[in-house]
C-alpha cells in the first residue's frame, strides 16, 4: 500500500523517538531495530501528528525552505514517508485534513 498524499499521517506510538542535536533515532522496541534520521527527517517525524497529510507537509516545508526547489522537496519527502510507511513506522489516521 502506498501513501495517499491527502490523507493524514500519524507515527506509530510504539516507536521510540529520540531527538539528537544533528537528527534523531527511531527505535523499534520489539525488533531492536535502530534508524537514524537527519535533521529534516526529525522535523517531518515531529510534524506527523495524526492531522497532517503528505501534501500539507510538503507545503509547510516549502514555505520554510523557499530556496529548495519544490520538486526536490516533494521527491525527498515521498521517498522518506514511503519507506517509513512500508515498515509500519507511520500510518494513515482517520482525522480530517484541512486542504493544503
Amino acid at each position: 500500500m502506498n501513501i495517499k498524499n491527502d490523507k493524514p499521517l500519524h507515527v506509530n506510538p510504539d516507536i521510540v523517538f529520540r531527538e539528537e542535536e544533528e537528527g534523531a533515532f527511531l527505535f523499534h522496541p520489539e525488533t531492536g531495530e535502530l534508524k537514524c534520521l537527519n535533521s529534516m527527517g526529525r522535523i517531518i517525524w515531529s510534524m506527523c501528528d495524526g492531522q497532517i497529510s503528505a501534501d500539507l507537509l510538503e507545503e509547510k516545508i516549502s514555505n520554510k525552505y523557499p530556496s529548495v526547489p519544490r520538486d526536490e522537496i516533494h521527491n525527498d519527502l515521498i521517498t522518506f514517508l514511503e519507506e517509513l510507511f512500508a515498515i509500519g513506522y507511520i500510518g494513515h489516521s482517520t482525522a480530517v485534513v484541512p486542504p493544503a
Partner: protein
Amino acid sequence: MGIKSLPQLRSLYFYVSGQCNLNCRHCWQHKRIDEDSMVPDGNNAEIPPADLFRVIKEAKELGLYSIKFTGGEPFMNPLFIDYLNIAKNEGLRVVIETNGTLLEESHIPRLKALNLREIAISLDGANQETHDNFRQKKGAYLQTLAALKLLAKYKLPVQLIMCIHRKNKDELGDLLLLAEQYKVNSVKINPIQPMGRGQELAEKGECLPLSELLELSKYCRENLSKSFSGNLFFGLPISFRPFEEIRDRTFSVCQIFSILGLLSGGELSFCGIGHNNRELIFGNIYEDSLPDVWKGAPLLNELRQCLPKGLKGVCGRCLLKSTCLGECRAEAYERTGDLLAPHWICQEALDSNLFPTTRLLPAADKLKE
C-alpha cells in the same frame, strides 16, 4: 536456530602463541601465558600448518574472509611465518596484533606479500620509561620503535594501540607525534579493561575514572584528531559517540556473530576468552569438524539466540544494543561469569548519571507504571 539464519563465519581470531616475551601490566590473558611460560622451551605444541590449512579451508566454506593473528605474541611461535604463507595463499585479509619487539627485516617480504589490512602495534607511552614500566621489560620501547621504523620504511599499514592510564595520559600528544613520524595509519586509545591483570591496575587506582575517559575522548575528537593526519579512535562504547558517527557508522564494533577464536592449543572459543575460562571452549580442531562446531555448538547458538535481546542492565535498556551487541562480551563474562551482563563502562556511566539519556529506554519497571 535454523540453518537459514546461521551467520557466516567471516573472521578467524587465531591466538598464535600462548607465550609472550613481555609481561604487560594490563594483560587479560596472563593466566594462559603464565601457564605456557612454565613449559620448558620446545615443549609447546604449536598447531601444525597442515591443520591450520584444513581449518581455513573448512572455514572458507562458511564464509571466511579474514584472519587476525594475535597472541600471546605471535612472533614467539616459530611456525608463524608458515601460518602467514597459508593466509596469503588462501587470499585472506590479514590483521596482525603484535608488540613489535621481535619483528625483523627478514620478515618484511612475507608481510609485504600479504593482503594486509594492518599490523596493530602496542605502544603505551611516548618515552622509554613509561612504556617499559608498563610492559615490564627494559628495552621494549626501543625495540618497538625499531619495528615501527621498519614498517614505515616498507610502507606497511600500521595501527598503534595505546592503553591509556594515569601514568601515560599526558603523553598522548607526544605519542601522536611519534605516530606521525612513523607514518602510522591510525591510533587507537583503549581504556584498560578490568580483567586479568587489568583488574589489579583498577584496584590500585591506576586506571582513569570514567569522567576523565569521557573528557579525554572528547579532547581527542575535538582537538587531537584535527592535527593528526591518520585516524584517531577512542575505544569507548558507541553510546558515547556523536550522533553523526552512529548515523554514518564510522565506528567498529565486535562482530561476535561472525568471528571464531582459535586458541594456540587448537581449542575453539568466542575469542581469547577461552584462554581464561575453559568452560567457554566449545570445540577443538583436532577432534571436531569446524562446520559442526559453527553450526551446532550450544554455547554459540545460545549467544546467537540471546544477543541482543537478553542483554542485562544498561545494555538491555540501550537504543544501540542491536548495533553494539553489548561491546565486549568476553569482558562481561570475565568480570561476572555472565555473557549477557552489562558492559562495565556503560553501566558505570548509568550509575553515575553519565550515560547519554537520549540513548536509554525507561527501565522495565518504569514501563509498567
